[in-house]
């Protein structure tokens, strides 16, 4: 087994798993499309990284931070709905990215390219994924409680504002990491689809969150395998596997 393949497999397993787990929380909080929008916001960073040959996730993270700050600033200034402002920022980001994104890199930026993952990349992705998973696991039940009743959560001593901030930070980092696997166009699906499938199949929170994690891993592994065997880009097949699992989950949907 060649090293490059092993790296892509490890990276996608860790990122896919945590993205699925995070997605179960995002669907509950009705924030499923946030991952999608942020994937687009990161595009100029991805483009710069591809041109100057630095880490794609790092480029993505810088522009995600800028994008989120901008959305926040617009919200303070205009009081327009957050989703409208997000729409403005993410489409503008895509437009800016296409000003300088070289034609040869378009497909890498949009649907990812795991064949370029190195050892340092792998190590940093694994460490960050594990940290994010542990943080999310710590705040998970409190976020669900705050979602049921914010007042009840506050009375139980949950610092809702702080937790929301940590949660948003986790989303930004996972989106930045996931872009390596699925590209900015498809990143949203990596958080939504596994969690939606798991929701159909689960009776309780444990099955739901860990089901999403497992479906995320399965999707990523099969995408990477298809890349290895047939040479197709992994990104689209990661998402298509997740979608297939979602379709199958409809048959077994728990009422």
């Amino acid at each position, binding site marked *: 087994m060649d090293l490059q393949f092993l790296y892509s497999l490890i990276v996608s397993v860790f990122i896919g798993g945590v993205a699925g787990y995070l997605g179960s929380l995002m669907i509950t909080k009705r924030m499923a499309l946030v991952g999608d929008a942020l994937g687009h916001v990161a595009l100029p960073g991805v483009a710069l990284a591809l041109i100057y040959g630095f880490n794609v996730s790092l480029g993505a993270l810088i522009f995600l931070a800028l994008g989120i700050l901008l959305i926040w600033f617009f919200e303070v200034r205009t009081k327009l709905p957050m989703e409208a402002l997000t729409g403005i920022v993410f489409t503008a980001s895509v437009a800016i990215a296409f000003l300088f994104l070289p034609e040869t890199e378009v497909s890498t930026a949009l649907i990812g390219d795991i064949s370029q993952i190195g050892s340092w990349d792998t190590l940093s992705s694994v460490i960050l994924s594990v940290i994010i998973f542990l943080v999310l696991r710590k705040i998970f039940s409190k976020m*669900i409680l705050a979602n049921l009743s914010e007042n009840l959560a506050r009375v139980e001593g949950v610092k809702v504002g702080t937790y929301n901030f940590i949660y948003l930070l986790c989303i930004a980092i996972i989106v930045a990491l996931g872009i390596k696997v699925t590209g900015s166009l498809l990143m949203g699906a990596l958080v939504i689809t596994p969690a939606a499938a798991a929701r159909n199949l*689960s009776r*309780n929170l444990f099955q739901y969150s860990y089901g999403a994690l497992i479906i995320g891993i399965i999707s990523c592994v099969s995408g990477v395998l298809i890349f290895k065997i047939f040479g197709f880009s992994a990104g689209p097949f990661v998402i298509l596997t997740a979608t297939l699992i979602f379709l199958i989950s409809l048959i077994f949907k728990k009422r």
Partner: protein
Amino acid sequence: MSEFILEVKNLNVELAGEQVLEDLSFDLREKEILVILGPNGAGKSVLLRTLLGLHLFKGEVSWEENTHIGYVPEEFTVSKNLPLSVKEFFNFKEAESSEISQSLKWVGMKISPRFLEKRLGTLSSGQLRRTLIAWALVDEPDVILLDEPMVGIDIHGRKTIYDSLVEFWQKKNQTIILVSHEIGEVCKKADKILALNKRKLFYGKPEEVITPQNLAKIYGSSISL
């Protein structure tokens, strides 16, 4: 006499530019049951939330140090689709199975292992109310604040639940603040009644303050218990 567990002095609350509570003062000792009465929109729920530190206020609200407070909010709905089991809901408070069944029993629920595996969102409104009260009881707080706890529970159920709750509260030395828009069973068990409509209407022991004249202040016409 035991110390005050809660002292409220000259409490004023303004929400969105409107004065909701005006110059309220009252106090509470350990093990006392305070029932807060008043018509709809009188500011009862706001008062509870202010006591819980959820609203800004002017005046003084002082709890005895390290008081552990439980809360039963008036509004609590769970989406049918949310895969959250009753047991997992209690696990948010790290409750043991034995504690869960015990507190569910106090609110008159016959529980089976199957009930604990049910989705919270599929419970009937009465079951959900009882479960929510049991949730507030499960870690045995020193004080419990209940906002219209019996909404959705039929009149026969209420008396049984109140009887067993009062017994539970006395056994655990708990202090209770209970909001109700109607005068009912629980007023008989109260140590103090506070009636308000933005400001204090009357305040005192039930046998002293529950008079037809006073009740007319709340409801506009005379009623007796």
